[in-house]
């Protein structure tokens, strides 16, 4: 489908329509974070609440597919024990996802579909419609341009670009097409507007270059191959608080813990999974006391290798960092920034 235009004055109509027919989630501005205005994903209850000119949200949208805590199944014990499956399928529209977060979602899609597919993630994903938006601002610690995530050509149902006077919209799927057709007032874009989109996007990519890798992204796995014994790991890790914040805020961190939760009646309960983090000290510890990543250095280094090499060679064929910069922004001792670490490793190697 050709590119479409939504006039700014018609945006509220579209948003209101989506609110009336779906659970609508989107970006809201809520107070201040350490780096200025703080943006969060939440339920949109009026068109005015939806913010589209954010720089970066505090938390990525991964909670919609991998909730911080979810039931894998419910069960009852007692004389007739049984398990009951919980299959999430609540339809959802997420309005306003930046290209780097869309890229992260595409990567997670591959991870959860690989090998034995994860029905919970996939069901949530299937029930969700993604409306992307090209960034108008860059967060101070973002470096998505050098992670090749300044623009995306897939992984969305609709993709919008702010052209000043209006939004130009690309359709990425049948679902997206139906959404526009049913709920928005659109007109085809003129060739002028199409050209404007191209230049706006190259402007965005330029904006995103303010911080970045000093070398091509595809060299990261090989750089890590040579950096295993770099003193940098220990140097940084001595400042690490093992707080796991870098895992928590990352759109491509998906490790989880599984445990059983009993109701007070002690006959019903649920098996839950919740986010876990490889930076937490007990992550690789077994019941007999052995901890296979017992030092801060080994845990700190593991995250960079997992993103830069293990997942690359394993499932993704790509670096599992999209350059959002959230880990960098929220790490208290400021040692979690991948671009900082990769560039310094490169420097030391040369």
């Amino acid at each position, binding site marked *: 489908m050709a590119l479409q235009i939504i006039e700014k004055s018609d945006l509220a109509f579209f948003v209101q329509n989506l609110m009336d027919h779906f659970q609508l989630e989107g970006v809201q501005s809520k107070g201040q974070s350490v780096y200025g205005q703080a943006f969060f994903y939440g339920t949109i209850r009026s068109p005015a609440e939806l913010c589209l000119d954010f720089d970066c949200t505090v938390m990525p949208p991964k909670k919609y597919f991998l909730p911080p805590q979810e039931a*894998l199944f419910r069960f009852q*014990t007692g004389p007739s*024990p049984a398990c009951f499956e919980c299959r999430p399928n609540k339809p959802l529209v997420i309005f306003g996802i930046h290209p780097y977060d869309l890229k992260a979602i595409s990567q997670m899609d591959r991870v959860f579909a690989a090998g034995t597919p*994860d029905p919970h993630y996939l069901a949530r994903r299937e029930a969700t419609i993604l409306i992307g938006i090209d960034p108008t601002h860059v967060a101070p610690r973002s470096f998505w341009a050098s992670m090749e995530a300044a623009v995306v050509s897939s992984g969305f149902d609709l993709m919008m670009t702010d052209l000043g006077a209006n939004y130009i919209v690309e359709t990425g799927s049948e679902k997206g097409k139906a959404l526009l057709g049913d709920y928005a007032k659109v007109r085809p874009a003129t060739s002028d507007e199409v050209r404007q989109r191209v230049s706006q996007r190259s402007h965005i990519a330029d904006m995103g270059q303010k911080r970045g890798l000093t070398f091509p992204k595809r060299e990261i796995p090989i750089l890590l191959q040579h950096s295993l014994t770099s003193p940098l790991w220990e140097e940084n890790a001595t400042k690490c608080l093992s707080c796991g914040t870098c895992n928590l805020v990352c759109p491509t961190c*998906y490790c989880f813990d599984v445990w059983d939760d009993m109701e007070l009646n002690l006959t019903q309960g649920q098996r839950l999974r919740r986010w876990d983090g490889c930076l937490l000290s007990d992550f690789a510890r077994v019941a007999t006391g052995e901890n296979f990543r017992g030092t801060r250095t080994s845990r700190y280094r593991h995250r960079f290798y*997992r993103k830069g090499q293990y997942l690359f060679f394993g499932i993704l064929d790509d670096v599992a960092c999209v350059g959002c910069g959230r880990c960098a922004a929220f790490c208290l001792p400021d040692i979690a920034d991948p671009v900082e670490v990769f560039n310094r490793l490169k420097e030391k190697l040369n």
Partner: protein
Amino acid sequence: MKYQPLADISPYLPQWAEISRIQKLTESERLFEMHLADGEPLGHKPGQFIELSLLGIGEAPISISSPPGVENSFELAVRKVGNLTSAMHRLKVGDRVGIRGPFGTHFPVDETQGKDILFVAGGIGLVPLRSFIKFVLEHRRDYGEVTILFGARNPSEQLFLDELEDWRRRDDLRYLESVDRPDPNWTGHVGVITTLFPYIHVDPSKTYCVVVGPPVMYRFVIVEAKAKGIPDTHIFLSLERRMKCGLGKCGHCQINHLYVCQDGPVFRYSDIFDLEEAL
């Protein structure tokens, strides 16, 4: 008791298995013989594991200690160390548990046919290794010379006493054992398991070494096996890691790009010798 059958709809849902026999192995280890409630065979190979679940308590990875048999039953040997394993020790014959799996890679049962095998088991490592040892003894003519080395911390930690007695007597295998700390009744060898190596002879051109034991044991045993001339490609080991899913998703069992729950627990030494965090 009435149990609802579970449909095969989510890889996180367990199947029911019913306990048919319980045997005390040591003060802290028990053997559970069980079968799937639907009567189907588990369909495992020696060296694989299952996720054992008790509703309300949780799940733990446990090796399948028996070889695939004609009967559909299988055996788990559980050491009491924490929540789930302690609760397991309170169960009775007829009780049901949840099972997911079998998961993971298996010992090289086909590749070793016609070859000599040196089994090295440290402590509770005998539990997974036993599935392979018993498999080989059940198909004795398909394999060459069999040597079993078993080391325990002290005599009271020796498992499967009847089977050890059988191995001591058999003339179609060589069985050597040691304990680190003897008690007054112990008349056998004393020392860590590597001190048994001077007593064995292997033909490195046709010997496979299969090692399972506590993490500290591997490095020392591998040095001995290599000193006997056994190539890295003929050394196999089974690694323990924390596991939460068994599906290559939760990340807990990761060693570099490998997931122990899927790419292991059984590894060929030549595939992992250069991985930073493997041994």
